[in-house]
């Protein structure tokens, strides 16, 4: 009896906590459909009708910034995956002098917090005349995000049987062929994982774009902060802009979950 009472109070408490957790997001959805006048006159009232014109105006306001963000994300993901997997391949399958120290030098980068490098990195980007250019974001992003690729690809490539590579070598495949045609196709799930993690980190970053880029090149996060700062003139507009700009991250996470589950299921069937 007391057990079930405990369960009920626990459940009720959880429901309250969940509601509190979701309040900001319900707020986001609710106000994205209200006009500014409705917000001012009747804060709590339901919108008279669903004002999809907020979304139209918001789409016009943020579409170019979302495009900029997507461009930076896609180029970064591509660069990080190619460069990271290439190094991961070498560390997994090759033997050469100074292999250990070189690997440590790469992995040691993880001890460097971005806080330490942000000021001088700006100086470097400035010297390279890459402020107000997407390359000022992409190149530093690739440097940091390739590490995950090196770590994960090395582990995976090490687990592949040597016979696979031997066979391709006998057929006359060069080293690049072995990397691109033998190793890479076998690690697509890992590459997707790396891509998702990289995409989310880059898309959500606000600080570095804000430091490096100007208004004409702004990313979505910059545009989002800008909407809130310009006198907070229109909540409906900015909230629908936030929702539109969150669609890429939501899609990537949902797509990623499906991918993980598929991977797990196929693994279970094989074993």
């Amino acid at each position: 009896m007391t057990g079930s009472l405990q369960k009920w109070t626990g459940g009720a408490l959880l429901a309250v906590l969940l509601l509190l957790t979701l309040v900001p997001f319900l707020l986001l959805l609710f106000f994205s459909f209200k006009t500014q006048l409705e917000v001012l006159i009747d804060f709590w009232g339901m919108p008279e009708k669903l004002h999809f014109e907020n979304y139209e105006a918001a789409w016009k306001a943020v579409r170019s910034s979302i495009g900029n963000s997507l461009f930076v994300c896609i180029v970064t993901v591509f660069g990080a995956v190619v460069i990271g997997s290439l190094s991961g391949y070498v560390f997994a399958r090759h033997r050469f002098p100074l292999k250990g120290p070189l690997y440590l030098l790469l992995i040691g980068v993880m001890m460097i917090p971005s806080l330490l490098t942000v000021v001088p990195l700006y100086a470097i980007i400035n010297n390279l005349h890459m402020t107000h250019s997407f390359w000022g974001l992409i190149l530093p992003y690739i440097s940091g995000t390739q590490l995950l690729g090196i770590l994960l690809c090395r582990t995976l490539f090490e687990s592949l049987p040597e016979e696979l590579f031997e066979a391709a070598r006998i057929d006359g495949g060069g080293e690049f062929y072995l990397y691109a045609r033998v190793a890479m196709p076998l690690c697509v799930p890992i590459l997707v994982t790396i891509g998702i993690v990289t995409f989310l980190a880059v898309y959500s970053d606000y600080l570095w774009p804000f430091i490096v880029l100007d208004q004409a090149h702004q990313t979505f996060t910059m545009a989002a902060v800008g909407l809130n700062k310009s006198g907070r003139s229109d909540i409906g507009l900015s909230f629908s802009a936030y929702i539109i700009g969150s669609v890429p991250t939501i899609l990537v996470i949902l797509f990623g979950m499906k991918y993980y589950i598929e991977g797990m299921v196929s693994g279970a069937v094989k074993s």
Partner: protein
Amino acid sequence: MNLAKWKRYGISYLFLVPSFLFIATFLYYPVLLAFFHSFTKWNLVQSSWVGLDNFKRMWTETSFVTGAKNQLIYSVTDIVKAIAFPLIGAELIYLLGGNKLKYLFRTGFILPMLLPGVVTILLWQNIYDPTNGLLNQLLHRLGMNATHAWLGEDGTAIWSIVLMGLPFISGLPFLIFYAAIGNMSQEQLEAARIDGANGWNVFTKMHLPFLIPQFKIVMILTIIGSLQDYVKILIMTGGGPGVATTNPAMIMYNAAFGSSQYGYGSAIGVALFLVILIVTVFNMKFLKTDY
């Protein structure tokens, strides 16, 4: 023979060139610059050696001392937020009957993680808005004085930032605790129950000791993270009013990108890096957690 061997090595090194080119240019070189320029006055064009002046300035400047005190508030509350609340959430879900209900709540709590972090910060900024903010509107509804500019007043600004994200369950610590509790040995828990242990005893005597490794990891990561966290301050208050909500990382940002004092900014970056290093070494030596 030897030539063939070195040709093979050459291919290995060639494949590594892109990685090292990137890391050298955009990670190791900035680190060297940071350490060097922490001893200089630097406006990106010219720099002059000033010795330890930048570091002395931190301890003598009142705004930095305030920032350091604020950092203590942020770090301590961040630890409480990352451990107590997610643990309560995970335990309550664990107590629920029915797997569907558990799944529903777990999914609900991680739902906010779908949005980019900046959007969440902006939503909270809106909640604290003096006129159209949810908080003031709610207080008004309850018949209370509701004219506070929560983020604009000395007394409330820092606590408004601290309380952002209430009830603090959504996030990685919650998932870590939830997974760990699910992995506990059911036989032991069952045996304890048969021996007459009540829920509270099971929680304090079995769950808490079992979760110590998770507590350590979350605590270390939270301390390191909170020292580096100034995006929310930058967006919500810019460190103000005055220096009421600033922290050392925010002062670093303002010094470099607000007033072109890149030398002083580098010095603060170096100082924070050393603190992070000490925390990390302390962790490896005494707490011995892997992450």
